[in-house]
């Protein structure tokens, strides 16, 4: 086999093409090229190009004698190397690494799917809370807390809303038990609401058991927690009205009317005057008839509201 030969333009040395360089358009041997490039008097650096012997494979160095190899990307390569260059496989370690990363991602998805489920439930609970659907919000929060047991605050908030649902259903004992189980993981901003809800549940029990003195004490406790908000005076009016209905003591009736007046004035500044109107009717009915009925019975008997009959002259 004979490699293609080239003659150095400077020293006339015969050498293989691969052993030559084109410096500023002149083909020279490597020694002469180094001499030219090391000349300190050069004003500009000349363009240097590698000379490639088309009969030698650039990749494996295989010599094809006097026959040129097929050029790939302008470089001569033997058929074996050409096949490799055109179908270069990914190295095994890349394939293994990518498989490991893919496996990690799949494993992580499977491992963390409970967090995604929990997040979906949490977002759903926010939507339900915004629409006032506490029952569904409590269910979603409970599901979220079950998905992520590490987050004790989620369980505590779920407990809080389950307690609120039981309050709404007037299951006072169960509500107190649920609210008491919220524990120390409850966010601090919800703690006063829990305490107040427990008092309200106790008010419910006192009302149901006709323990109106306890009802009054508890209503006072709630009012004392909000000294600047007279809307809570409505509960005090209700308690006095119950005591009046039970005892007939005019002092209770007077205090009930005073508290009702106070609550009425406060309700005008809030966005619940309609609620107060129906509440007021119930208290006045209690004072007028001395009969204590709960709001469900009141709504059943007087679906269009109750008006105090005019006194006959």
């Amino acid at each position, binding site marked *: 086999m004979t490699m293609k030969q080239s003659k150095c333009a400077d020293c006339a040395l015969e050498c293989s093409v691969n052993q030559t360089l084109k410096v500023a358009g002149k083909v020279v041997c490597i020694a002469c090229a180094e001499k030219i490039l090391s000349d300190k008097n050069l004003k500009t650096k000349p363009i240097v190009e590698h000379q490639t012997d088309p009969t030698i494979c650039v990749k494996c160095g295989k010599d094809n004698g006097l026959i040129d190899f097929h050029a*790939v*990307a*302008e*470089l001569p390569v033997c058929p074996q190397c*050409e096949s490799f*260059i*055109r*179908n*270069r496989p*990914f*190295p095994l370690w*890349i394939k293994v*690494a*990518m498989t490991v*990363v893919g496996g*990690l*991602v799949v*494993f*992580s*998805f499977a*491992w*963390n799917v409970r*967090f*995604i489920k*929990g*997040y*979906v439930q949490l*977002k*759903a609970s926010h939507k339900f809370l915004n629409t006032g659907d506490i029952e569904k919000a409590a269910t979603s929060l409970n599901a979220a807390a079950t998905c*992520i047991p*590490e*987050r004790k605050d989620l369980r505590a908030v779920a407990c809080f809303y389950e307690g609120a649902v039981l309050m709404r259903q007037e299951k006072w004992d169960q509500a107190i038990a649920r609210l008491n189980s919220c524990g120390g993981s409850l966010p601090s901003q919800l703690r006063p609401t829990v305490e107040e809800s427990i008092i309200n549940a106790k008010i419910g029990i006192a009302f149901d058991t006709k323990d109106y003195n306890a009802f009054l004490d508890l209503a006072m406790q709630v009012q004392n927690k909000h000294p600047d908000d007279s809307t809570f005076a409505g509960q005090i009016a209700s308690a006095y009205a119950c005591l009046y209905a039970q005892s007939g003591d005019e002092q209770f009736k007077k205090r009930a009317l005073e508290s009702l007046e106070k609550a009425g004035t406060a309700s005008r500044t809030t966005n619940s005057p309609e609620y107060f109107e129906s509440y007021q009717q119930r208290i006045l009915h209690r004072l007028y008839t001395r009969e204590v009925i709960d709001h469900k019975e009141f709504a059943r008997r007087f679906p269009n509201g109750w008006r105090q009959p005019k006194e006959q002259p």
Partner: protein
Amino acid sequence: MIPGFIISIMTFPGVIVHESAHMLFCKIRGVPILDVCFFRFGNPAGYVVHGRVDDFVTSFLVAVGPFIINSALCFFVCLPAFVPVRIFGMTDPLSYLLLWLGISIGMHAFPSMQDASNLWVQAKQAARSFNLLAILSFPLVIAIYIANMLTFFWLDYIYGIAIGLGLPTLILDHLF
């Protein structure tokens, strides 16, 4: 200032994926691959030497391949770790490993200056024959140059965070 080679070492999976993406698109488009370095301690940290490409679509895909592959992988690697870490503040090592991996991959999504230069030369030639993709590529190449310059201000890291953590937030908030 943290030298570039240290960042490359710290985020080496991104370099490997970047070069793999170049190689993948070369293979898909039948471009001969003369040499590949997936990672090395030097500048550049990796490279793919491929044969000359005559059609612009191929040039475009080979140059922009890492942007597509690295961004997609960044998103999918970070996604399973995102909810437990970001939303619920969990601190399990697997999630942190995936976040590092995902953000490292995302950080190397930008095509390099060399990729942009190659694309610019090819786009100029192709635009002469009114190749629409080539014409549309000019602003993209300029964007790549700017993005590369802004890596000095950690734009690559910001991009990785945006794809790995920002995009899942956006998607989860809109889905649920």
